[in-house]
C-alpha cells in the first residue's frame, strides 16, 4: 500500500502528472504505475479528476452557497438517507456531516441567486426529516483545493546563485 499512497500523494496535487514521470520519480516501472492507477480507479480509491477554474476571471456570474442543514436523524440509518437524497441533486457539489450546531453542510452552485433559493425552498427544505436550513452565499474565492485565486506565487529566487 505504501507505493499506492506515494502515487496518490503525487497525483493529488497534480492530476496531469503522466505515469512515465511518476514512475521515474518513484524509481518504479511505468507499466506497474499504470496498472496501479487503473486499479485504484476501478476500486474507487480514485473517484475522479477535477479542474480548478477561476470562472470569475472569465466573467462568469455563477453563484455558490454553503447551506447548513438541520436534520432529524432516522432510526438505524441516522443521517445517511437524507444525505444520500441530497447528493442526488446535480447542483449539489459537496455534502458533509458536521459536528456542532447543525448536521449537514451542503454546497450548491447555480447560475444566479434565484436558482439557489428555488433549490432551497422547493427541494431541500421540503425533504422529510429536514428541520431547517441556513444559506450562506460565497462572495469571493481566495483559495480552493490548495490553489490561490489571485496572483499566483512567483518564483522570487535569483536566477543563478552559488
Amino acid at each position, binding site marked *: 500500500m505504501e507505493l499506492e499512497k506515494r502515487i496518490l500523494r*503525487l497525483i493529488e496535487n*497534480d492530476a496531469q*502528472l503522466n505515469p512515465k*514521470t511518476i514512475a*521515474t*520519480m*518513484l*524509481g518504479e516501472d511505468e507499466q506497474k504505475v499504470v496498472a496501479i492507477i487503473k486499479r485504484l480507479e476501478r476500486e474507487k480509491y480514485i473517484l475522479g479528476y477535477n479542474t480548478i477554474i477561476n470562472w470569475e476571471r472569465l466573467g462568469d456570474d455563477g453563484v455558490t452557497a454553503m447551506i447548513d442543514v438541520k436534520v432529524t436523524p432516522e432510526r438505524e440509518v441516522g443521517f445517511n438517507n437524507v444525505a444520500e437524497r441530497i447528493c442526488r441533486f446535480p447542483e449539489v457539489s459537496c455534502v458533509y456531516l458536521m459536528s456542532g450546531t447543525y448536521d449537514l453542510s451542503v454546497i450548491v452552485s447555480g447560475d444566479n441567486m434565484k436558482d439557489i433559493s428555488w433549490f432551497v425552498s422547493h427541494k431541500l427544505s421540503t425533504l422529510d426529516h429536514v428541520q431547517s436550513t441556513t444559506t450562506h452565499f460565497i462572495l469571493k474565492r481566495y483559495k480552493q483545493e490548495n490553489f490561490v485565486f489571485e496572483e499566483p*506565487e512567483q*518564483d522570487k*529566487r*535569483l*536566477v*543563478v*546563485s*552559488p
Partner: protein
Amino acid sequence: MNSKVNMNQYVSKVVRDIPPSGIRKFFDLVTQTEGVISLGVGEPDFVTPWHIREACFYSLEKGYTMYTSNLGLPELREEIAAYESRKIGVNYSPEDEILVTVGVSEAVDLALRALVEPGDEVLVPEPSYVSYSPGTTLVHGKPVSLMTYDADEYRLRPDILEAALTPRSKVLILPYPTNPTGGIMKHDDLKALVDIIIKHDLIVLSDEIYSELTYEGEHVSIASFPGMRDRTIVFNGFSKSFAMTGWRIGYACGHPEIINAMNKIHQYTIMCAPIMAQKAAIEALRHGEGEMKKMVENYNYRRKLMLAGFKEIGLSCFEPRGAFYCFPSITSSGMNSEDFCEQLLKEEQVAVVPGNAFGNCGEGYIRCCYAASVGNIEEAIDKMGQFLCRHRKG
C-alpha cells in the same frame, strides 16, 4: 576626488587578487535573457513553511527586536544541542560549545579567521562551494585543492588527502553532502580519513548544511568518530533543510576554546544573529521536522526525474546522493563548461551553472539544480536534448 583616479589601487592587495566569482559573471548574462528556465539556483524552491514565518511575526508582535547574547538565544542553543545529539550522535553543551551565526557562511569565515595563521594551509576538496578558498586567502592562508572525481562519486580519497599534506597543513574542509556535485561521504569513507587527520593533527571544518538532504542511508558526521569531536567544528543551519536561505541563520558546534575564539570575532563584527531569525529557527527545530521530511521526499522524486532525463538525452551523470544538484559531464558536446552554458542559454534559454565555477576540476561538467518544478525540469531537459543533438561531436 577626481573620477579618473584609479581607486582600485586603494583596495588591499589580498582582495584585489581574489578572482571574480564565475557565477557572478554568468548571473549577469542570465538576467539579460528573457524567458529563462533556470536550473542555476542554489536554494530550495519552497518558501519557508508558514508556521515558521508566523512564529517570526509573533515574536515581532511580542516585541522581540533587541540584541541577543553573542552566542545566540539560550533556547535556540538548547534546541540545536538536542538536534545535533539526535542527528549525528554528538553532544554539545549549549553553554559554551554552540555559536549561532549569520548563516553558515559567517561561521566558516569565523573559523578560518580563528584558526589560520598566515601561510597555514587549508585543504579544500574540489569541486565545492565557492567560498572556502577565497575565505582562506582573505586570512592570508593558503588554499590547497584536493581533487575529487566523478569515478569516486566525488568522495575525498585518503591517498589524495595524504599526498597534499605538508608541515603547514592545518585545516581540512569537509563539505558533505557537497554543492555542486551531490556527492556524500558514507561512514567507511570518513573512517578512512580519521587516522590521517589525527596523525597530522588537522582541524576539520565539517560543513553539513545539506545533511538533511541525504537520500541514501543516514548522514554521518566525522565528529562522531572516536578522537574527532574536539578537532572538528560542525557547521549547520536552516537554509537548505527548512527552506530558510534568506533568513541567514546558521551555527557552529565545537570545542569550547575554539567556539570562544570564534565568538571573540563574532562579537566585534556581527554582535549577534538577528533575533527574528533566531526565533524562527527555534520554531523550525521544535515543529518543523514533518514539513521538512515532505520537502526532502519531494527533492528525491525530482532527483530521480532529472537523472533519468539526463540518461535519456545521453548526458552521463553519476548518481548524486545528497543536496539538490546533478553534476553531469558535458564533454560529449565538445565544448568547455562556460561555452556550453552560454550557448545553452542563448539557444534554448536554459540556465545551468558551469562546473568550473566550483574549482578547476569542475571543468567539463555543469551544475543543474532540481529544486525546480517538475514541468520546468522536464522542459529544460527536452531543450538540453535538442541542444545536444545539434552540437554533439562526431
